[in-house]
């Protein structure tokens, strides 16, 4: 991170220590922050699932009495005869703040009941026995989770978090992401093969087939994005969509219609990318590698404890990464893509799983042709644009494309508004009412 490098220099750290620190510190920060978000998103996923299935979801591990208990213990300790000065001071502060702390407890418990569940899960998984079955290929078996996690975490390095916050800004950022996220398949194959278990092997092979196939539509979407933005750097793509270019005008300056998704080709490619990303993350409806009903639980069937937790984290990190890429590519960048993660969860708990052949048909016969068509269309458009620029001049062309984009964005947004406010058919009305009915309280007599 260049900002950090300058800061280090100004603090009198020069030479190789500054080089090392400027790389290592941001990496650590990003990994820690993202893995915390990952843990939290497992909690969110369980709550989303509960809501969709009309249940309550985890509500036992609350932040609940934490602050209040802390204060009460401090007060009690301060009151004991052998309490020192600091103990008494702490007690006095806690006593004064007690109502506030209690209120914080209540609010946090109300806002996010059961939020500590992911910490309980994590701690428990660390405590579990780490079984490495005798018949496994031991070095591969041990290494596989780390390979999978490394490929997911590696992609975090080039994601743009804001204009100042990023770990690295390569001029081949998109290429790097495409390369490193597909390393995941290596780890999954290693896990499947090393487990020496037929279900694990089948899961691994299916996963390999799936990820390799869906790399193609993802690659096409990325390539089209590169063509439109004219850069492979993730930061550059963001700048391009925010219109922050030298000589930018009011109409090309960070407005909604500068987002790539309002480019007609990218508008078509956005769902293509999203579906392919779902498949790359092995999420339902593409979780064929982990199908419980056929394969018990796929490539991580033999993994217990910490190693399973690492697979689990890798899956959620991958979700964060693909959402972040989607946001950078289509939605203007510098956003965490939480909305897209929620969309993935929503899809997961709504749709059943595809069959293998359906999944392959979707990829090779639908997504890839659409992707290729969009890619070629953009190529042709760029040539047309170049010719036009020679004829009418860069400024006039900029203005024309702005109006074209703005019209397209207007149509899309107008359609969205109409869609959500359209008059409902009687069937839809009935369905709405059915959904709005209060659910049966849990545990009520039948």
């Amino acid at each position, binding site marked *: 991170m260049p900002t950090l490098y300058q800061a280090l220099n100004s603090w009198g750290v020069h030479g190789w220590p500054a080089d090392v620190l400027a790389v290592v510190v941001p990496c650590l920060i990003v990994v820690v922050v993202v893995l915390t978000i990952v843990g939290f998103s497992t909690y969110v996923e369980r709550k989303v699932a509960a809501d969709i299935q009309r249940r309550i979801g985890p509500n*036992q591990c609350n932040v609940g009495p934490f602050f209040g208990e802390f204060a009460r213990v401090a007060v009690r300790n301060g009151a004991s005869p052998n309490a020192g000065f600091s103990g008494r001071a702490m007690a006095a502060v806690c006593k004064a703040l007690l109502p506030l702390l209690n209120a914080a407890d209540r609010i946090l418990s109300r806002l996010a009941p*059961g939020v500590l569940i992911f910490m*309980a899960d994590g701690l428990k998984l660390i405590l579990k026995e780490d079984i490495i079955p005798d018949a496994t290929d031991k070095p591969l078996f041990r290494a596989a989770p780390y390979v999978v996690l490394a490929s997911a975490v590696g992609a975090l390095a080039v994601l743009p978090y804001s204009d100042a916050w990023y770990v690295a800004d390569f001029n081949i950022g998109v290429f790097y992401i495409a390369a490193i996220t597909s390393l995941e398949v290596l780890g999954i194959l290693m896990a499947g093969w090393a487990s020496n278990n037929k279900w694990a092997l089948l899961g691994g092979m299916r996963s390999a087939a799936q990820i390799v196939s869906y790399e193609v539509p993802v690659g096409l979407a990325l390539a089209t994005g590169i063509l439109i933005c004219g850069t492979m750097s993730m930061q550059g793509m963001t700048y391009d969509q925010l219109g922050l270019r030298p000589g930018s005008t009011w109409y090309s300056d960070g407005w909604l219609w500068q987002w790539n998704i309002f480019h007609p080709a990218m508008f078509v490619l956005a769902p293509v990318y999203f579906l392919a990303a779902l498949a790359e993350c092995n999420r339902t409806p593409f979780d064929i590698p982990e199908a419980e009903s056929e394969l018990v639980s796929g490539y991580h069937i033999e993994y217990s404890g910490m190693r399973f937790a690492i697979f689990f984290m890798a899956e959620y990190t991958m979700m964060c990464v693909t959402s972040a890429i989607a946001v950078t590519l289509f939605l203007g960048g510098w956003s965490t893509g939480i909305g897209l993660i929620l969309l993935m969860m929503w899809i997961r708990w709504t749709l059943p799983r595809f069959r293998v052949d359906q999944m392959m048909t979707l990829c090779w016969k639908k997504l890839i042709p659409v992707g290729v068509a969009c890619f070629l269309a953009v190529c042709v458009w760029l040539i047309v644009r170049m010719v036009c620029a020679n004829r009418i001049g860069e400024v006039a062309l900029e203005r024309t494309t702005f109006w074209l984009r703005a019209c397209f964005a207007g149509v899309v947004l107008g359609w969205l508004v109409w869609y959500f406010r359209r008059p409902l058919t009687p069937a839809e009305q009935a369905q709405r009412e059915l959904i709005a009915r209060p659910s049966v309280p849990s545990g009520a007599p039948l």
Partner: protein
Amino acid sequence: MGVLQHFFEHDNVVCTNVDTLLNLSKENSLWYLLFATACCGIELMQTGASRFDVDRFGMIPRSTPRQADLMIVAGTITHKMASRVKRLYEQMPEPKWVISMGSCANAGGPFCKYSYSVLRGIDKYIPVDVYIPGCPPRPEALIEGVFKLREKIHRETVLRKEG
């Protein structure tokens, strides 16, 4: 221990000593094995479904024994099945617990007297932590059993020698 003192007044605690913290993490994420052999299994499924929702207590089903903490033996176990149950139990990583659900798993149930094939109680093969009577036990009974197990886990200690 100063501020790190054990307080367990309600069901939620964070100010605690390390042992209790570990126990809390274990009892709040009891992942159970998706395993059922007979009619009790239907009640087990119902317990996981929307109305009774054991996910409230952090319990989710895992399909592989490697990732499960809790085996709920739900249903009739025949002599032929018993060795399989034992193998599944052995495949689970420590620490692990077993709930025997329903009369069949407890003692052979309705088949106790004349059956040639039914095992008279799964505790002949694997150690059982909690027995739940009933034919079948209602989901509430299963949840009560889970609570008993949680109490038991809460008394466990991994860091200190007892006494």
